[in-house]
C-alpha cells in the first residue's frame, strides 16, 4: 500500500516536473510533424491509398502505426493527454502559490542592500520620516510596506509586476480550456457536403442521407440535426482574362425556425469567406461546376431530359467529366430495360476550343459550351448491387461486354447526334451547380474565447517584469539621514537598470 502510494507520488512528481513537460512538448511537436509530410486520411483518403500502394511494406507498416491518421492516433493522443495532466499538475501548486503571494506582504528589507544587483545610497539633509514619505510618493502604484527596524531605521519594501504571474496563469489555464473545448467540438461536431443545382435546387438538413458525404464526430449519430433548408436560386462567377476566378456568388434562400412552418425563404448572398450562419450551423459555398443538359428522344418518340452534375477535372478551365444516365422509357420489364440503358460520358468544356477533333476548355466561364461524348448502351449495372459513381460508368460492365460504346461525337450547344436505332441525343447547354458544406461545431466560440485569453495572458506574462525595490533610511547623529536603495529584477534583467537608475536618482536627490 505504502509502496503503491510512493510509486504514485513519484510518478506524479515526475510527470509534473518541468523537464518532463519539456520532453512532452518536444514529443508533441515531433508527433505532429508527420501529419504535414505524409498524406492524411482526414484530408485526402485517395492519396493515402496511392501512397501505400507506391511504398509497399513500408507504406503498410506506417499504416499499422497510424501514420496516416496522426491526430487520431493512440500515440499522439497519449502525448496530448500526458501533457494535459502535466499542465494540470503544474498549475495547481502554482495557483496556491499565487494566492499565497497575493496575500503576502513584500518581503523584509535585506540587511545589506549593497549586495543587491542594483544599489545606490546618499546622505541627505532629511529626517528618515521625510525620506520614507518621499519614497512612498515616488513608488505610487507599487505594492509596498513601510517598516521600522530595531535600530531606528525606517524601511520600505516594494514590489511591482505581479501581473506577470497573473498573465502566466491566465495563459496556462486558457490553454487547458482551449484543449478541452477543442476536444468537445471534435466529439459533438459534424461536417457534410452536398451538391445542389443552381436553378432552385433545395437541400434540407434533416438527415444524413441528404448529404453526398458526411463526417460525424464521435458522439454524433446523425439524428437530431439542426433543422434548416437551403434553396439555390442562381450562381454567378466573374473571372480575370487569364481565367483566374475573381468572385463567386450563389443567390440562396434559407429557412429555419418559424420560417420552416410558414414556408418563407429569406434571401442570402452566399460567397466565399461569407458563410450563412443559421440555426447554430454554418453553410459554406465550397465550389461550383456545370451540369450538361441533354434531351434524349427515344425511337418511340418519348423524350427524357438528363441533368446530372459533372465534376471539374481542371480547376482552372473547369473542363469537366461525368456520366448522364437514362433508362429507356416505357419498358416495364427489368431484363429488357437493362439492355437499353443509355449513358452519356465524356468531356464538357464551358468554353470550347478544338485542336483538330480534340475538345478542350479554354476558359472557366460558360461562353461557348461543348461536349465530347461517348454514348454507351446496355446494362449500366445499376441493379448489380455494386456501388455506382454518379460521375462515371461501371467499367466492369464494359469489360463484361454488357455495355457497349455506340457513338462518339463532339456536340456544341443545340447540336445533336443520332444513334443506330434512331435515338436522338441533343446537347442543350449547361446549368450551374454549387457544392455546399454544412458545418456544426458547438464549442468553437469557446475555443475562440480561450485563444483570445491565451494571447492576452501571453502578452502580459512576457512584457510585465517583476521587480523589487527596498529603501532604508538610517538616521545619523548630525540629523542627516543615509538613504540606501536596492533593487532586484526577478525576471529577465534587461531593462530594469534604467528604471532603477531613474528611481534612485529621484529618491536620493539632495533638494526635496
Amino acid at each position, binding site marked *: 500500500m505504502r509502496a503503491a502510494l510512493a510509486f504514485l507520488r513519484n510518478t506524479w512528481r515526475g510527470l509534473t516536473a518541468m523537464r518532463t513537460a519539456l520532453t512532452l512538448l518536444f514529443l*508533441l*511537436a515531433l508527433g505532429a510533424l508527420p*501529419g504535414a509530410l505524409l498524406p492524411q486520411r482526414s484530408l485526402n483518403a485517395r492519396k493515402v491509398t496511392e501512397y501505400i500502394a507506391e511504398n509497399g511494406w513500408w507504406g503498410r507498416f506506417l499504416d499499422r502505426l497510424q501514420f496516416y491518421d496522426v491526430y487520431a492516433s493512440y500515440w499522439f493522443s497519449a502525448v496530448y493527454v500526458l501533457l494535459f495532466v502535466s499542465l494540470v499538475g503544474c498549475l495547481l501548486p502554482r495557483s496556491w502559490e499565487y494566492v499565497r503571494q497575493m496575500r503576502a506582504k513584500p518581503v523584509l528589507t535585506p540587511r545589506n542592500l549593497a549586495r543587491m544587483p542594483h544599489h545606490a545610497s546618499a546622505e541627505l539633509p532629511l529626517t528618515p520620516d521625510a525620506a520614507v514619505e518621499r519614497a512612498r510618493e515616488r513608488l505610487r502604484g507599487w505594492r509596498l510596506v513601510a517598516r521600522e527596524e530595531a535600530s531606528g531605521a525606517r524601511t520600505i519594501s516594494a514590489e511591482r509586476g505581479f501581473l506577470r504571474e497573473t498573465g502566466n496563469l491566465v495563459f496556462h489555464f486558457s490553454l487547458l480550456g482551449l484543449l478541452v473545448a477543442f476536444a468537445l467540438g471534435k466529439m459533438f461536431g459534424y461536417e457534410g457536403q452536398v451538391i445542389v443545382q443552381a436553378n432552385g435546387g433545395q437541400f434540407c438538413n434533416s438527415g444524413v442521407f441528404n448529404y453526398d458525404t458526411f463526417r460525424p464526430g464521435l458522439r454524433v449519430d446523425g439524428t437530431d440535426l439542426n433543422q434548416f433548408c437551403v434553396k439555390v436560386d442562381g450562381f454567378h462567377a466573374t473571372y480575370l482574362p487569364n481565367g483566374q*476566378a475573381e468572385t463567386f456568388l450563389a443567390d440562396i434562400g434559407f429557412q429555419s425556425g418559424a420560417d420552416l412552418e410558414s414556408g418563407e425563404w429569406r434571401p442570402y448572398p452566399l*460567397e466565399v469567406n461569407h458563410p450563412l450562419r443559421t440555426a447554430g450551423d454554418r453553410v459554406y459555398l465550397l465550389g461550383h461546376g456545370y451540369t450538361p443538359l441533354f434531351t434524349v428522344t427515344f425511337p418511340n418518340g418519348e423524350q427524357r431530359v438528363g441533368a446530372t452534375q459533372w465534376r471539374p477535372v481542371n480547376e482552372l478551365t473547369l473542363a469537366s467529366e461525368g456520366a448522364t444516365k437514362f433508362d429507356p422509357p416505357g419498358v416495364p420489364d427489368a431484363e429488357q430495360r437493362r439492355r437499353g440503358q443509355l449513358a452519356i460520358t465524356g468531356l464538357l468544356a464551358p468554353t470550347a476550343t478544338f485542336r483538330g477533333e480534340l475538345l478542350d476548355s479554354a476558359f472557366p466561364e460558360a461562353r461557348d459550351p461543348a461536349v465530347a461524348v461517348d454514348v454507351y448502351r446496355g446494362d449500366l449495372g445499376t441493379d448489380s448491387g455494386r456501388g455506382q459513381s454518379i460521375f462515371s460508368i461501371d467499367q466492369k460492365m464494359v469489360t463484361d461486354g454488357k455495355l457497349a460504346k455506340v457513338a462518339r461525337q463532339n456536340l456544341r450547344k443545340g447540336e445533336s447526334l443520332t444513334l443506330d436505332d434512331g435515338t436522338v441525343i441533343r446537347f442543350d447547354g449547361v446549368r450551374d451547380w454549387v457544392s455546399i458544406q454544412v458545418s456544426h461545431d458547438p464549442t468553437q466560440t469557446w475555443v475562440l474565447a480561450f485563444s483570445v485569453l*491565451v494571447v492576452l495572458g*501571453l502578452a502580459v506574462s512576457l512584457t510585465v517584469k517583476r521587480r523589487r525595490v527596498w529603501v532604508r533610511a538610517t538616521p545619523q547623529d548630525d540629523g542627516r539621514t543615509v538613504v540606501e536603495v536596492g533593487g532586484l529584477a526577478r525576471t*529577465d534583467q534587461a531593462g530594469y537598470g534604467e528604471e532603477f537608475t531613474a528611481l534612485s536618482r529621484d529618491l536620493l536627490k539632495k533638494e526635496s
Partner: protein
Amino acid sequence: MPVNTTLATFSDWTYGAAVAVYVIAAVFYLCEQAFAKHKPRERAMVAAGAETTQAAGTAEDGTWTPGLVVREERSRAEVLGRMGVALTLLGALLHGASLVLRGLATERAPWGNMYEYTSLLTFAAVVGWLVLMRMFPVRKLGGFVLVPIGILMFLGGTVLYAEAAPVQPALQSYWLVVHVSVISVSSGLFLLPGVASVLYLLKSSGRAKFAKLPDPGVLDRLAYRSTVFAFPLFTLGIICGAIWAEAAWGRFWGWDPKETVSFVAWVVYAAYLHARATAGWRGRPSAWINTVGFALTVFNLFFINLVTTGLHSYAGVG
C-alpha cells in the same frame, strides 16, 4: 480591378534597389567585423607588439591608450559600421516603398502571394534589426542578419516572383490583411533570434575563429528579447488564421500542412521559453531549440508552400 503597371514597375525597381543596398550594407558590416579586433586579444596583441611600434600603452593597468595603428583600424571599422547602418536604413526605405507601391498598384494589401509575403517578412526582419541595434551593442553582426535576408529576397524576387495581380476569391477578405501581415511580420522577426542563436552556438563552441563574436550573454538576451516579442505576435497570427479558416474553409482547424507546421513551430518556441527558464536547459540547449524553431519557420514558408499541396497553396508560383 485593373493593375497600375507603372506603379508595379516602380515597385519592382525599388525592390531590386533595396536588395542591392542590403548586399552592400552587408559587405560593410562584414568588413567592420573583420577589421574590428576582439578586445582582450587585441590588447594582448598590441601590448605584445608595443615594444616594436612603441605606440601603445600596457593592457594591464587599465589606463591603456591605444596606439596610432590601432586607433586608425578601430575608427576605420567604426566608420564602415556606421555606413552599414546608414545603408540599411536606406535599404529599408526603398524596401518599404516597394511594398507601398505594390499595394497601390494592385489596390489591395501587398501580401497576397509568396513573393510579396517574402518581401514583407524580410522587411519586418530589417526593421526589427534596426530596433535591436539601438538596444544592444551588436552593430557588427549586421552582416550575419543581412546575408540571410538578402538570400531570401533574392529567391523571392526570382524564383517566387509573381506579377502584380488581384487575388482569388478565397483571399478577398480583410483577414488577409490581418492574418498574413501578422504572421509574416512575426516570422520575419523570428529570423533575428534565429541568427542570434546560431551565433551563440558558434561562440559558445569555444573555437578561436568565433572569438570575435559578442559575449554569449548578449547573444542570448538578444535571442530572448526578440523571441518574446515575436512569439505573442505569431500566436495572434495563428489565431487570426483560424478565425479566417472558419469563414473560408468551413473549420477553424483542420491539420492542413501549413497549420500543422505552424503548430509545431509554436510548440517549439514555447519549449524554448520554458527551456530558458529551466535549470540544465539554459544556454546551448535553448539556443538549439530556437534555431530549430527558425528552421521550421523557413520550412513552413518554402517547403509547405512549394512542395506539399494543401489549402494554403496560394503561393502564386509556377
